[in-house]
């Protein structure tokens, strides 16, 4: 099913000509309205009229998260505050939060893109959407909420936390669609089991999961544990919030990015060069319809590649491969680039091993030490020491084979790795504490 047949299946040529027109208007607009962009363009010797083709986008300078902080709170808005109807902000764990503003049309477009996303993921009118994304400054809750209403589904504004109540409502209200982070869905299943409820027996049919990176292996586990179809959604507040890109239920492979609103590029995170089609690198997004806070070549720090091949679902909007980590989550262990998602895929590939893990990075002298903590469950536990030691060795070997890094494996008791109710904290890097760097 497709929500907006006309725009979602627009022939590429028409789509690209629409993009160019919108991009040119957007560049004119930010140059005239936002001092930051005017100064930045001038400094790089590029003027709005230089953008004659889509390829000219590469001539424009990047926008960084730091630029948002430097212009805190409203400096990057391209309309007067009277036209802003909603303000969201990031958590701001490091320094000031990043602030985004939406005009009424922005909210309409966002709702439209979320409605498209729900439909692409297999939801429809008549569904009871259990929205466990946090409501508040975080874009997740309200973003999904408005899209669900636009779709005409019945939305339960649960927000995050209060897990026991979540389970009661899910059961009593007959929720059919769950929206939350992937790690929280597994947490819910575990909590339900403790209440004596098998979450597989509930009405849930589809889960739409985002806001943290997750692997294909975790998808398999979620689908098995919750007996649902688990769909990957992508978004970030700087660009929109949830609904920037979504998997379609037909292919369940790669996330369609709404190209009538965004232009994606893939760059080498080190050099900033645009990479050839199909290569893995950092995702850069330009918004071409956003009014409140337009973003020109925003560096998302998310690592992916663009899938150019047509999709069986009929949508013409290209797909992003499932995010394989963030360029700033990347750990450099003894000179080797390590993404937590790679270690996760090794663990889930070993029979019986739980995907509950934590990476502890420390430094002894000048040497980086990576400790992988893995929970022992009844499937992997044995009364014989040697069998557990073999398990440790096997995990260590498979990680070494995949990444070329020797790590220390530590087996820990179940649930001793903190389960956050929001994003899973996978990495504890103790190196920054003594160096003060990064």
């Amino acid at each position, binding site marked *: 099913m497709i929500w907006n047949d006309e725009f979602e299946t627009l022939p590429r040529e028409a789509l690209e000509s629409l993009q160019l027109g919108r991009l040119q208007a957007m560049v004119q607009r930010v140059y005239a309205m936002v001092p930051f962009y005017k100064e930045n363009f001038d400094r790089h010797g590029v003027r709005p009229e230089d953008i004659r083709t889509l390829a000219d986008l590469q001539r424009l300078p990047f926008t960084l998260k730091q630029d948002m902080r430097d212009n805190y709170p409203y400096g990057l808005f391209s309309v007067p505050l009277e036209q802003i109807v909603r303000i969201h902000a990031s958590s701001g764990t490091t320094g000031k939060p990043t602030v985004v503003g939406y005009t009424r049309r922005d909210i309409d477009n966002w709702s439209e893109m979320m409605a498209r996303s729900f439909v692409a993921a297999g939801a429809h009118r008549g569904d009871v959407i259990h929205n466990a994304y946090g409501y508040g400054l975080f874009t997740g809750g309200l973003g999904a909420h408005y899209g669900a209403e636009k779709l005409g589904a019945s939305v339960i504004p649960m927000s995050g936390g209060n897990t026991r109540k979540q389970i009661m409502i899910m059961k009593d209200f007959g929720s059919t669609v769950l929206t939350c982070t992937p790690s929280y869905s597994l947490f819910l299943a575990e909590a339900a089991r403790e209440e004596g409820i098998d979450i597989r027996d509930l009405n849930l049919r589809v889960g739409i999961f985002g806001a943290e990176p997750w692997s294909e292996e975790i998808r398999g586990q979620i689908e098995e544990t919750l007996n649902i179809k688990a769909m990957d959604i992508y978004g970030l507040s700087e660009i929109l919030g949830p609904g920037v890109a979504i998997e379609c239920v037909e292919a369940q492979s790669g996330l369609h990015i709404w190209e009538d609103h965004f232009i994606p590029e893939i760059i080498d995170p080190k050099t900033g060069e645009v990479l050839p089609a199909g290569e893995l690198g950092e995702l850069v997004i330009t918004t071409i319809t956003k009014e409140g806070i337009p973003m020109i070549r925003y560096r998302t720090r998310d690592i992916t590649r663009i899938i150019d091949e047509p999709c069986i679902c009929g949508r013409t909007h290209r797909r992003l491969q499932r995010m394989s980590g963030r360029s700033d989550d990347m750990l450099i262990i003894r000179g080797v680039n390590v993404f937590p998602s790679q270690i996760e895929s090794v663990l889930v590939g070993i029979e019986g091993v739980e995907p509950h893990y934590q990476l502890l990075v420390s430094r002894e002298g000048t040497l980086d030490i990576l400790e992988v903590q893995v929970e*022992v*469950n*009844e499937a992997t*536990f*044995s*009364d*014989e*020491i040697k069998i*557990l*030691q073999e398990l440790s060795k096997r995990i260590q070997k498979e990680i070494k084979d995949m990444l070329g890094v020797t790590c220390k494996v*530590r*087996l*820990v*008791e*179940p*649930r*001793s790795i903190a389960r956050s109710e929001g994003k899973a904290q996978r990495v504890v890097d103790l190196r920054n504490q003594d160096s003060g760097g990064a």
Partner: protein
Amino acid sequence: MKVEQISIFIENKSGRLAEVSRVLGEAKVNIRALSLADTSDFGILRLIVDRTDEARKVLQAHNFTVNKTEVVAVEVPDRPAGLAEILQILDDVQINVEYMYAFVERCSGNAVIIFRFDNVDEAIAALLGRGVNVLKGEQVYEL
């Protein structure tokens, strides 16, 4: 002829053993024999208790990882070379002892030792065949 043993995964951090015994005590489960194997990171606590299933259930409810295994309780003459004779019998038929530990109580004046074998049935047959007394589960839980 087999005895049920539960084993519990324990991280090397303070208070975990105390927690196991507290949980079992509150459930009125009596520990009959125990052994703790440990490495630098973790330990495995093996227990023979009077009510195995109850013990397993309450420990799982407290988020411990618990397994049940079958072990063999053997009466060993309480004199020099008593144990050596038993081990010789097993060696003769090439049965491996994974681990073993002694029971606190005695049985008819003899010591009782818990064995974990790689092949339980063959071990029992070999011991019985050479006149060694192997205790039944019910006898052990009530010793």
